[in-house]
């Protein structure tokens, strides 16, 4: 007992743990006064700018602040996901613009990924003609400005024939100068029944998967069975509730085309432009990713008796995704930002609505703060999502 006490007193205390102030001081680092002075100078400069802006606004009689959001906007919006008429509030107009931006970016990311993977794989083909064609496609799209490509697609969309003369592809897709008409798919019947069916079947499928997972019996076969079961449940519930899916093909009636889904020329041009440009970038990423997997991996997989499809799915893709995912993330971010070029071809995205708002209200500072805030939020959310996915595909146990 006494030995222990002696031992305890013999311990030499280390330096005291830094307190909160000490931690901040250590984080702040050297040259403390100089840093403070620099940041203070920047803050002063910023204050000067803001004061000037406020002064100018006061002189021309504009009240600073976000109060203008609830006043009515006297302009029309060509197309929007939510109903908008002239006279609705600016908040609603800006929301409509934001939804348009989100719509075109999301569709663009998905379609560019699909097309990009196809082109990337085609570029790796041993066929000289195909890989050469892909090479030229990529070089041309990469080395000309996106805005130029958008102008080109816009000119093409405007040069399409009028609805009456428009050719129909498979009697379902019409390319006209009033936009692209594609078949639409919708559910008719009791909306409550539809919602209930999806909720019930979704809950059922989720519960099944969770139960399998918890009991440790989740394999490819049982998982597929659970999904098939819930899809069957959806269909059953839908038929029971009296709802039925209706596919409607556009058709010529009179001078115009009715039915189906109409993509405006601006939207179609913007979407095609973004998809084409970014599919070329993604194709390059996919090619680099697949080539980063060594030839030894292919040979080893062949020696194990796997066929080509299995090699791609089980050996090459999981490794290539480690290279591909972070690079595609930045492509998605760029695509979202580049969707702002919509303003140049007249698609009412967030940027063009913000521009109109700034011009009609004079509240340019507030409008631009909203714009920058919205894009920062989208970017941060998108990169957070992609980071989660990246953590799933990244090499386990590697040094980070």
């Amino acid at each position, binding site marked *: 007992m006494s030995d222990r006490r002696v031992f305890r007193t013999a311990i030499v205390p280390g330096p005291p743990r830094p307190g909160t102030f000490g931690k901040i001081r250590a*984080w*702040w*680092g*050297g*040259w403390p006064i100089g*840093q*403070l002075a*620099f*940041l203070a100078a*920047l803050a002063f400069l910023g204050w*000067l*700018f*803001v004061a*000037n*802006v406020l002064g*100018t*606004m006061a002189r021309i009689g504009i009240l600073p602040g976000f109060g203008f959001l609830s006043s009515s906007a006297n302009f029309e919006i060509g197309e929007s996901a939510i109903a908008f008429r002239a006279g609705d509030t600016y908040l609603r107009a800006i929301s409509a613009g934001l939804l348009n931006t989100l719509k075109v970016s999301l569709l663009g990311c998905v379609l560019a990924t699909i097309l990009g993977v196809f082109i990337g794989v085609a570029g790796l*083909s*041993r*066929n*000289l*003609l*195909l890989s050469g*064609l892909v090479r030229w496609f990529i*070089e*041309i799209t*990469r*080395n*000309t*400005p*996106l*805005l*130029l490509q958008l*102008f*080109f697609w816009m*000119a093409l969309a405007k040069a399409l024939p009028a609805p009456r003369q428009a050719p129909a592809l498979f009697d379902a897709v019409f390319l006209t100068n009033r936009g692209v008409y594609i078949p639409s798919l919708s559910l008719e019947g009791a909306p409550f029944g539809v919602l209930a069916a999806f909720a019930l079947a979704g809950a059922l499928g989720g519960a099944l998967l969770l139960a399998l997972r918890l009991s440790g019996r989740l394999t490819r076969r049982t998982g597929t069975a659970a999904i098939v079961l819930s899809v069957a449940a959806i269909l059953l519930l839908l038929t029971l509730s009296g709802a039925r899916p209706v596919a409607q093909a556009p058709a010529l009636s009179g001078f115009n085309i009715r039915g189906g889904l109409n993509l405006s020329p601006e939207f179609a041009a913007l979407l095609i432009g973004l998809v084409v440009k970014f599919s070329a970038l993604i194709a390059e990423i996919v090619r680099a990713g697949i080539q980063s997997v060594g030839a030894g991996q292919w040979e080893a997989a062949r020696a194990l008796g796997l066929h080509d499809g299995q090699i791609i799915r089980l050996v090459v893709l999981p490794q290539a995704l480690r290279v591909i995912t972070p690079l595609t993330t930045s492509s998605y971010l760029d695509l979202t*930002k*580049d969707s*702002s*070029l919509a*303003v*140049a071809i007249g698609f009412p995205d967030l*940027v063009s609505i*913000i*521009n109109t708002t*700034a011009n009609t209200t004079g509240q*340019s*500072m507030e409008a*631009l703060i909203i*714009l*920058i805030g919205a*894009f*920062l939020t989208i*970017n*941060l959310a998108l990169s957070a999502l992609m980071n989660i996915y990246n953590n799933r595909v990244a090499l386990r146990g590697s040094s980070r």
Partner: protein
Amino acid sequence: MTTASPRLVQTLRTGLFGTRANTLITLATLVFLSQILPPLFRWAVLDATFVGDAAACTREGACWAFVTAKLRFILFAFYPTELIWRPALIILLLAAILTASALPRFWGRSLLVAWPLTILACWLLMQGTFTSTPIASNQWGGLPVTLFVWAVCFAAATPIAVLLALARRSTLGGLRTFSVLYIELMRGTPMVGILYVAMLILPMALPDAISLDKMLRAIVMITLFWAAYIAEVIRAGLQAIPIGQREAATALGLGYWRTQRLVILPQAFRIVIPGMVNLAIGFLLATSLLAVIGIFDLLNAARASAADPQWLGFYNEAYLVVAVIYFVICFGASRYSRWLEKRLAAGSKHA
């Protein structure tokens, strides 16, 4: 030749018809090309009008007469005709300094002096110094504007970017936080938004004593914007330098700035040059956004040329000319980047 031809035939045969799947792909690609190329050829050559005026042009074929008539406008936009030698000289000056910067044998202190001088000379030439009437920036346009804005902004953004990158890597918490916030803010905002800030906010924010014209405001904001992108590329280079380099420099008694200037930055720049070239290509393409705020850069000049009442609507031809100009510059630059990467890699192996 006698030995080369059979080998070429052999390569083509296996490359095009090696296996059954390969033959199918070749045939499918040929069908695809046969749908696209003949109409294109008919438009560009067979049905095209090469000389004459707008009335001679048909809508079925390309109107190359338009290009010969409007090429001067596409290249120089509204610049006074009798002074056209000035923007032409600017193109030559910028081409010369870019070529010199591209060749490793010219890398050195003299380039650092030559760059600001060239930019100053371009600015003076553009403004019409030593002529009776100064030329306002709203008369500038076309290729010189595109190249000038690109070169000025890239050159001015690089020193800012070095400071930002160093701050982001430093142990000074305040500066590091500022740098991170600045870089993320700029990289999260689309360039169109930055241009709107230049158009709408900057005139209000600056004191009345300072009034900048549209071109200058755009240049200031684009410089600040690109600095964030360049800073990230330089940071990647800084991160690649082993810590031993800094420790060795400290052991030799070098202070922070001399360590960075003499040891770290020269090595980091060597690593990031290919990345910077790629960035520069992207920036050149991005200058076309100047059209959004009504500056007549190359692309906007092309658009305006087809809005001429005498030559209305020849947009395809105008865009094609501009696309070729952009393509030649950017394709050349990307080839150069690849060559440089190989050369630098070879250099570091010898060292």
